[in-house]
């Protein structure tokens, strides 16, 4: 399961970032932040004509020594980043995909909340709990 899940707004500021263990938070901030480079590159790499039927799932953004970083971009250019432990080899690409889909659905729910201001950090409890189910249980 994921060690860090982040939602990044169109303007590349974080809407939501959560990680386990919590003490290494800054490290994940750096990881996710730098992964945006790759995300942007991937988005811009796709031709304009193909933008419509673009695959939302970006796949592995980059592997680091300890983690693998996966990306997902909605059509409104909101980015989801999931960081998983490299040692966790049992995790398939398909599972990552389904995680992103779940995340996307939950995010859509958040956006549907009339009291949510687009661009504000996400504070929804429902979203939080969905994320929690995807995270590694902190020991």
């Amino acid at each position, binding site marked *: 399961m994921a060690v860090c899940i982040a939602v*990044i*707004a169109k*303007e*590349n*500021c*974080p809407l939501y970032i959560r990680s386990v263990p919590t003490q290494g*938070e*800054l490290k994940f*901030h*750096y990881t996710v*932040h*730098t992964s*945006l*480079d*790759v995300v942007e*590159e*991937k988005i811009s*790499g796709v031709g304009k004509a193909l933008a419509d039927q673009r695959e939302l799932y970006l796949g592995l953004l*980059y*592997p680091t*020594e300890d983690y693998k970083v996966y990306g997902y971009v909605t059509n409104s250019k909101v980015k989801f980043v999931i960081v998983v432990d490299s040692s966790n080899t049992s995790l398939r690409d398909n599972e990552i995909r389904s995680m992103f889909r779940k995340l996307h659905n939950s995010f859509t729910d958040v956006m549907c909340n009339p009291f949510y201001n687009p*661009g504000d950090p996400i504070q929804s409890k429902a979203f939080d709990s969905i994320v929690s189910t995807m995270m590694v249980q902190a020991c």
Partner: protein
Amino acid sequence: MSVPDYMQCAEDHQTALVVVQPMGIVPEDQFFRIYKRIASVSQVSIRDSQRVLFIRYRHHYPPENNEWGDFQTHRKVVGLISVTSCTTTKEWPQTSDRFQGQKEVFGSTLYDSRLLVFGLQGEVAEQQRTDVAFYPSYDDCPDVEKRVEDFVESIFIVLESKRLDRATDKSGDKIQLLCAPFEKKDFVGLDTDSRHYKKRCQGRMRKHVGDLCLQAGMLQDALVHYHMAVELLRSVNDFLWLGAALEGLCSASVIFHYPGGTAWKSGARKPGVSSAADAGKRHRPGALTTNGISADTSTEIGRAKNCLSQEDIIEKYKEAISYYGKYKSAGVIELEACIKAVRVLAIQKRAREASECLQNVVYINLGQLSEEEKIQRYSVLSELYELIGFHRKSAFFKRVAAMQCVAPTIPEPGWKACYKLLLETLPGYSLSLDPKDFSKGTHRGWAAVQLRLLHELVYASRRMGNPGLSVRHLSFLLKKEVTQSLENYTSKCPGGMEVISLPDGLKLPPVSFTKLPIVRSVSLLNLPVSLRPHKVKGLLGQGMSSASPFIYSPITMHSRGDERSKKIDFQWVQGDVCEVQLMVYNPMPFELRVENMGLLTSGVDFESLPAALSLPAESGLYPVTLVGVPRTAGNITINGYHTSVFGVSSDCLLEGLVGVKSSGCMVEVVPSLPRLQLCTSLPRSAHLSSEDLSTSVSLRLFNGEMQQLTITLENIGTETLNTLELTSKNLSTKEKLFGEFLTWDLQDALSHLPLKSGQSVSIPVNISAKLDFSGQENLLHDLNDDGISVTGLPVSSPLRQVLKPRAENKPVGSDASKNEFNHVKMLEAVLTFKYSGGAGQVEGYSRELSLGVRVDVEPSVFFTRVSTLPATSTRQCHLLLDVFNSTEHELTLSAKNNQDLVLHASECQRYTHTHTQTPPSLKAISQSQRTSLLLRNELFVEGVLNQLILEHLQLAPLQWDVVVNGKPCDCDVIADCRVGDAVPLEVKLTNRSKSAVGPFSLTVVPFQDYQNGVQNYDLQDAVSFIGSNTFYISTVKPTENSVCVGALLFLYTGDFYLNIKFQDDSTARDLPPAWFCLPSVHVKAQEPVEL
């Protein structure tokens, strides 16, 4: 080889390496001046061929790197230029020896060398030597470049000869095996005769020749050689060299494809490598075009089919890198290859592949690296990421490099370098130190990372020994988050508003605490009412008429809405304290002390009086009033405010603030006016409800009481008071006021004008309250209770007056009725002093000072009831007035006719007044002896007698006069007559009404009253009429009269009454019956006097 050259790029493969070194003691700046001049000769066209030789200069080159010269010839030091100072001839031999020694360092690879000697003159310098050049001084060496060019040419000759030597060496019998430094021991004892070995030798040699061809400017040949080498080496699985051959192939192709070079970014750092600027001048034999990249490479491929396509270059690079990866000792080579590949990828704009390459670079283990090398490595990584557009990644590595600068293992941490590097990371984290960008919202996001960076900046700047910078950054940090340590620093180094310039040219703009506290609204306050200037009306019209021809236009309203700097419609006065109210709140979770808070203005000299405030943690909106004194007249604009928080001064301009509500910031300041201070002899009171008043007094008076109020006006301003006017205005009251409420005499005060500063004048004002308390509803009610039919029965008709027994026992003094009568009435008036003087008067301004006077009038004496009683005469009636003393004092009531009545406190007494037919103008004057004060009051009957009662009190318009025996008769008058004598009876009708009346008929009926209820009308034999007993009165016109004359003859003595009956006539029916009340006549008939 352990020192990687992070600046390597693919073109370096075609350069020849020349080391330029100082020898002995050479001043550094001088050396680098010479070095620069030497380095400017980076490419030399060879005279008789079309080829160009590229030179790469280094002033420092580790000899162990030189050992890799066989592996890749561009790593080989082929030339040496030594720069030395030599002042005397004696030193020369020694210098020469040292030059030899230096040559030996790179001896194995050197093609040629030069020695540049500066400062030596004399015969030694005269000698012509090719390898030594003598110059008198560092400034006087005009032909250095020429010398270097010659030197390069000589290198080229050697290079060319070597190339030809190797290329044509087809003998094949014994090809020397070229080795990388670490391989040497591996091949010891290997079978040198095997085919495998031979092939290996051949392949390596091919590759070497390829290198040489490339250096010698024969790109096509190089490509061919590389291709052959690749094939040969692939067959023998000589991976290291295969990698090198592939890399060579790539380099050659890159040079072919991108004549502009791939190292454009770091060109400035490498003076030895020609920059992109002179790319056009480069002449490459392999390339068709001499200037720039031809977009369509397919045309060239025909000519250069050996050249790799752009796609292939990357493929081959990857392959080469993977081969290098097999050898641990070739880490540096792998790393450099990676970097070169990244540069190519960057040009091809294939950022993702480049990033993968770079990712690989991170993992290449070069063994034990020194800290400096680590820093360099991270910096280069960061630069490369920047190159491929990965700004965040670049920032990350830059930050790592910065942290490496100050790693705890380093004995002397380079805080300056760390700080410098940290500053460079800022754009990557989309941080801007300019607070202007702050409000634009660029700072959204990644707070944790940004915060960390700012913290590091603060720490670094502090360790750098620049607390000023630290303060600036901390201030900035504070704008985002909370930090309290700022105060400690500011005590040592106050944070100012000036721009801090760093030595490297970066400017740190001042950070203003616009969020500490947050200002929500700014409103300019009008002056207090008493100080507001009023324009003389005549002048006011001009400004309005010029604005628009319409009195009202909705269009102007719209345009005014968005105008921020609109003028406010009130004025401030020069020299007077003016106020601006800010609504602020403290968003911080701690108490915020704001000191020296003042206004920033323009347009007028403004003396801002700073305020200090302390805002509780996370306070709500909190009003702060900033004050100041305009020193000159004109238009003043409030631009912002300045604060001092935690010792950091900030200037906050309103235009830069978001979410500040302002109703306009420009206001006119009019010239100074005098100021009056008002004090009264009475204590101040709360303000009156409706009006804006400077002061007000209130007092309590009994109705009819008069009191004097002394108003003292003091000129407390600086200007001289020239004019003073006093007006009063009674505020709306329903009460009927008798007489003047306020009276004054201003003459005495005006004689004191002009009033200089500090002088005062006093004005006496008399307050008298004369109100009517009697005309209250309950009074009328009482009348009804008395059974006097207000509608039907005539009050004034004494004859028909039937009085029911009055309810005398009515509890007048009881609480209930006391409340009923104790209505306190309020009188309000405003005294307005209008004054002017000084410069403001010239401009037509004046000031108004208003004093509110409020008097609660208590009832003193008033009528509670009114009723009438019939008098004996038809011409009179009795008016009964119940007078009530509601005060707690004893009062004496005196009427016009000097009838005194003493009224005790809360006592009600009846006062009888005989009401004549004269119009009711009765006045009752009451006097009370209250302590020493004399209360004079006039009680007015008018109030009591409302319209209805008055109607009944008035005389009937038809006046009947009955004259018996020549004597007018009324109720009480007894007419005397003699028995047997004819008694003339005359009835006279005078019409005082406005219309004609009549005709009427009257009948005189005599009767006798036995005083026991029996009335005898049967008097035919006792009284005889002479003539008719019935009179006829024809129509009587207004103001005319009609007289009917008859006569009576009394036959017996006795008391007789005559009842004159009015004969009902249909025509007169609409007239009220009261009009036809004729007096009854009492006639006393007596015995005739015996004469």
